[in-house]
């Protein structure tokens, strides 16, 4: 068992930081190399979405576990209620504190190590997620966000991914400076915003025994969604989302271009103004009058606001995720179609 150091429960947080034996992460290196999830957590997440998350709502919850060396072990989780407007006096922090206190009584690991969220067709790269993950990672270094894709899972294979913010992005978020210059300095592209951590699933022996029991008692699964050849519905929706994002991206690019044009126009104007000033001064000198006072150029020409770059980074990241998902889906379907073709050829 790794030794755990509990941070003092702050009023608004109460996260306990669990550090493994000694190994501090090297600067620029990520603290977590692998995420190990108990089968129980997977089942709970699936059940939570299935029962409470129909429609476009995302469901969220908290992950509990501990850190062992460079592996994050997630041993339990509990769901968060949906945000409803008629629940104005619902206190999230209080719910969390009570839940964790109760779970502690029954010996469940009560240390926060991350959170999970469901996603709709892979669209999870949003500002909200970034902010939440940043505050989690700031408080607990090893935390991850688990993204569960129920639609992809319903198609035949469990889709669960663990993400963390890269150390570079953490730095930028800490500064809260999202201007183009700062981002250029930090050298962040949309590819190194999030890093994916590989997941393994682990069960204890007793759970394995129980699974054998289940296997014996339940029949064979009668739906084989994974081998279904119909793909156009899913593709259509994914492409629709992709098109929306690309539209947003192009709008963002237009905004940025206008900004650049404004900046260069302003430069020209400043240049002209300075030249005129100089000419006037020369004329005045030739006439023997005192030169005009130097005016502060910046007060005359207010520099335009650079648009925040975080939005476009997020959109680029989201587009990237969509494209990745589409390509994976396509590869799978091409395989299936070729198999069908081979079977048909064999029969003829």
């Amino acid at each position, binding site marked *: 068992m790794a030794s755990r150091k509990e941070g003092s429960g702050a009023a608004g947080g109460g996260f306990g930081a669990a550090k493994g034996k000694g190994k501090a992460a090297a600067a620029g290196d990520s603290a977590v190399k692998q995420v190990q999830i108990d089968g129980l957590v997977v089942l709970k997440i699936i059940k939570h979405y299935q029962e*409470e998350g129909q429609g476009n709502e995302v469901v969220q919850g908290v992950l509990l576990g501990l850190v062992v060396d460079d592996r994050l072990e997630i041993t339990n989780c509990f769901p968060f209620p949906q945000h409803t407007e008629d629940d104005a006096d619902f206190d999230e922090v209080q719910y969390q504190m009570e839940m964790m206190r109760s779970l502690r009584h029954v010996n469940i690991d009560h240390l926060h190590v991350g959170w999970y969220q469901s996603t709709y067709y892979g669209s999870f790269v949003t500002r909200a997620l970034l902010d939440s993950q940043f505050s989690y990672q700031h408080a607990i270094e090893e935390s991850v966000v688990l993204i569960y894709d129920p639609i992809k899972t319903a198609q035949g294979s469990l889709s669960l991914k663990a993400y963390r913010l890269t150390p570079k992005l953490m730095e930028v978020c800490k500064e809260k400076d999202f201007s183009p210059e700062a981002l250029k300095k930090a050298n962040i592209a949309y590819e190194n915003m999030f890093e994916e951590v590989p997941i393994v699933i682990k069960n204890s022996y007793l759970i394995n025994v129980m699974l054998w029991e289940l296997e014996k008692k339940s029949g064979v699964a009668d739906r084989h969604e994974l081998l279904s050849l119909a793909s156009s519905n899913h593709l259509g929706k994914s*492409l629709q989302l992709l098109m929306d994002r690309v539209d947003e991206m192009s709008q963002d690019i237009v905004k940025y271009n206008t900004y650049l044009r404004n900046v260069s126009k302003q430069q020209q104007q400043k240049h002209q103004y300075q030249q005129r000033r100089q000419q006037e001064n020369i004329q005045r000198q030739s006439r023997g009058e005192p030169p005009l006072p130097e005016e502060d150029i910046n007060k005359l020409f207010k520099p335009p606001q650079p648009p925040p770059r975080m939005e476009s980074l997020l959109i680029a990241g989201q587009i990237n995720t969509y494209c990745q998902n589409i390509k994976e889906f396509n590869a799978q379907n091409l395989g299936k179609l070729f198999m069908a073709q081979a079977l048909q050829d064999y029969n003829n």
Partner: protein
Amino acid sequence: PAAPAPPPAAPLSAALSGPFPGGRVVRLHPVVLASIVDSFERRNEGAARVIGTLLGSVDKHSVEVTNCFSVPHNESEDEVAVDMEFAKNMYELHKKVSPSEIILGWYATGHDITEHSVLIHEYYSREAHNPIHLTVDTSLQNSRMSIKAYVSAPMGVPGKTMGVMFTPLTVKYVYYDTERIGVDLIMKTCFSPNRVIGLSSDLQQVGSASARIQDTLTMVLQYAEDVLSGKVAADNTVGRFLMDLINQVPKISPEDFETMLNSNINDLLMVTYLANLTQSQIALNEKLLSL
């Protein structure tokens, strides 16, 4: 198994507050079992078993158990104490997430019903109407983890000491589709040496799914051959199922099939091309911006 009582008389169904809600079938979700086993593994030193509350819903024909949480309790030779305050609190918290789940009964690990179970069952009768009791045998008697459900019925001769009898119910396992897929995946840890599996890539999944279908087809073929050669008696229902199976394969002429296949493949290739194009576009954009 009956609690200590005078010679059993016919169960007084009139004394029951109405028939068992929802018939005699208990539908259990796998997440409940996993939770129970997990709390058993985390039990306190010296505790022989763990107990907890079962949550779910009742409908006309059955009781569906979808969730559970463990409740701390102390058991010794002559007395038992259950932290009901804790149970109430936890139930409130759970209700915030799933308002439709109600208390259905309670569970205990272990392979038999003890006298303490009767007492605990009485506690729970105050919370739920005719609670059910689930036992999960974690001590693995007979090398099986038997999972049984009971409902209680009073018995005894009226006027004299009354006892309680636990009548067994049928347990069925139900899954949501996604749950089934999740369980199938988690089950793979049974086969790996250190009980750890990674999530496989997409083509691997297609491969394993086709392997499974292949296995089932071989089984069916084997059965058909056995029947033909007389080794196994023919069964009409199975024969009808097989007939349906064969008839489900659609009859398409080879040319039509070719065209369908090709158009699908073309669609997929085009979409992959577009996705790659978009990705290179945003990469270019990134490079331009950082100039």
